[in-house]
């Protein structure tokens, strides 16, 4: 809980600073944009969190986003598939990718880093190959129907013209389901337990392999959902670069949001706040006219500081608890 408050404070600090330096930050148009971007990146970050909680890693998220983006226009525009069938196909593809990752990691005992690194390369390559490296897009045919899933907005009464981007609703739904799954179901608790110590979890009768596979399926599934939204939002996909590095943003958001790369820890809300911090930082860099070249340096520094502060707080709490125990022991 303290952790959540800490990261929320960081988000608030970045927002307040930007708004103070440039009041346009709080404009309806800008807030809508930031919410939309946060939703898109929030979704992949939740996926990354599930894998990180098991003590694993998924480096292929960006390439899955890219491949989904490449396949969508091909099926929809070139092959003329109906939208529902195309969506079913790309989601099936994403889930299958996750299943393969999970099986290779649990049954073949391969390291997650290696499996998903290969995935990163393979899916990127396939995407570039099937599109011949040409940017492909949806044209203008889907502007008023399918694309609304990513670009649509729903007016919220009484909020001064503010309209909630549709992806935000998708994110909220995914957050609720994921948080309930992680915190309120036996599988979620087992997932956290196996992240702390897979061996201990296995000896206590948890079928760890199944859970690990599930985590990778969820991660690629989230990348699939986000991939659909990213492609529809941009309306065009550059096969060589669409989604590249997104896995790192997702991992950074997860870590910023309180996941430990050692596994066993993480909160879904925290991860979404982590993703929000990253998007607000990107936004404020542009709004304040800070040179583009400094973008990565600033974002890297803020993440590092967040993690350092988190570690300091954690140690302080641990020391305090230890001292209390000692005191009680002495009494």
């Amino acid at each position, binding site marked *: 809980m303290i952790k959540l408050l800490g990261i929320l404070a960081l988000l608030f600090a970045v927002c307040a600073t930007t708004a103070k330096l440039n009041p346009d930050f709080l404009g309806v148009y800008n807030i809508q944009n930031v919410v939309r971007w946060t939703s898109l990146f929030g979704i992949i970050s939740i996926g990354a969190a599930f894998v990180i909680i098991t003590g694993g890693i998924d480096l292929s998220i960006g390439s899955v986003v890219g491949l989904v983006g490449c396949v969508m226009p091909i099926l929809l525009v070139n092959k003329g598939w109906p939208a529902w069938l195309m969506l079913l196909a790309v989601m099936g593809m994403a889930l299958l990718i996750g299943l393969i990752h999970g099986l290779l990691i649990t049954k073949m005992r391969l390291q997650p880093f290696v499996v998903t690194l290969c995935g990163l390369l393979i899916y990127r390559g396939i995407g570039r190959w099937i599109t011949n490296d040409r940017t492909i*897009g949806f044209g203008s045919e889907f502007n008023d129907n399918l694309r609304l899933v990513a670009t649509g907005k729903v007016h919220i009464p009484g909020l001064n013209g503010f309209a909630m981007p549709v992806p935000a609703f998708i994110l909220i739904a995914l957050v609720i389901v994921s948080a309930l799954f992680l915190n309120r179901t036996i599988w979620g608790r087992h997932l956290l337990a196996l992240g702390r110590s897979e061996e201990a979890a296995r000896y206590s009768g948890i079928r760890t392999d199944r859970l690990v596979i599930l985590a990778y399926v969820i991660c690629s599934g989230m990348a699939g959902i986000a991939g659909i939204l990213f492609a529809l939002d941009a*309306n065009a996909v550059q096969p060589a670069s669409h989604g590249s590095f997104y896995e790192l943003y997702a991992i950074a958001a997860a870590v910023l949001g309180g996941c430990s790369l050692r596994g066993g820890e993480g909160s879904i809300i925290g991860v979404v706040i982590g993703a929000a911090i990253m998007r607000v930082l990107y936004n404020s860099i542009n709004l304040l006219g800070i040179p583009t070249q400094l973008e990565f340096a600033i974002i890297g520094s803020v993440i590092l500081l967040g993690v350092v502060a988190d570690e300091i707080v954690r140690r302080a709490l641990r020391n305090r608890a230890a001292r209390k125990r000692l005191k009680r022991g002495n009494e």
Partner: protein
Amino acid sequence: MNLFRSSLGALLVVGIALGGCKKEDSDQPESTGKEKISLAFVTNGPANFWTIATAGVNAAAKDFDCNTDVRLPNGLVDQNRVLEDLLARNVDGIAVSPIDGENQNGKINEAAGRTHLITHDSDAPGSDRLMYIGMDNYTAGRMCGELVKEAMPDGGEVIIFIGRLEQANAKLRRQGTIDELLGRDFDPTNYDSPNARLEGNGFVILDTRTDDFTQAGSQSQAEDALARYPEIDGMIGLFAYNPPAILNALRGADKLDQVTVIGFDEDEDTLEGIKDGHIFGTIVQNPYMYGYESIRILAALAREDMSVIPEDGFLDIPARKIVKANVDDFHAELRKLMGED
């Protein structure tokens, strides 16, 4: 003590977040000040080419008394986001080099509806942009093809290197080169698949290799091409960093001067290569003028002078051929523009 340390940590974070942004505090009142126009120049990625354009932007900012901001986004999704952020900032005009002019129309129209929007370097013909500043890439590609023909009068086997084929300017530039080499008629709607082996007019175009916008990638592509086609006669590099990457690869393979190199754009190494005779020639655009003219026009538009828009919506800044005979003059001119003299 613990409480002290944890508060220190929290303070540190907030302090840096504030400090990181405060750095910009000094420019801030200027750029939000309504009395001075604020304009943005958005590129299609980070590249040396845009450094020259930035010099033009800065010169025009002085001449036409406005604040300018050059943004170098990383890919299409990032470019869309940068446009949104600039609109949120209520800039008075944007000049953008769209990465995918066709499919980005929605975002470009959104921007055009909120501010003065023009395109430079690469166009978005179907959009609501007010005008396009740049050159005709297909024609420039054909000029590049002419240089290849001059350098290799007997024809031969060549390979093309280009950063990526996704943006309109790259497609057209490559196609112009191919059509000229194969002796085809002038038709910018042609498109040959990058993997196709093309033959005609005494030339064989073995392949087109893309490198995802990195010089290291381009060099390794060139090295691999030398390994695969040891007898290759010519290498054509169509993005600014391609010719230097080709030179590096040739140097490494000890094949300088055995393979004819034709380039594009005015990278320092390319110009030095022409002086040394390792590169036959290059086609240069005029990025400085892209930057300068973009700001000149946007500043006028912001002051409600619509007469700066040409009737056909196209301000042509033609390409030029640079070979050994005129490279020194060109280099001197470039240095002057960049303020290096």
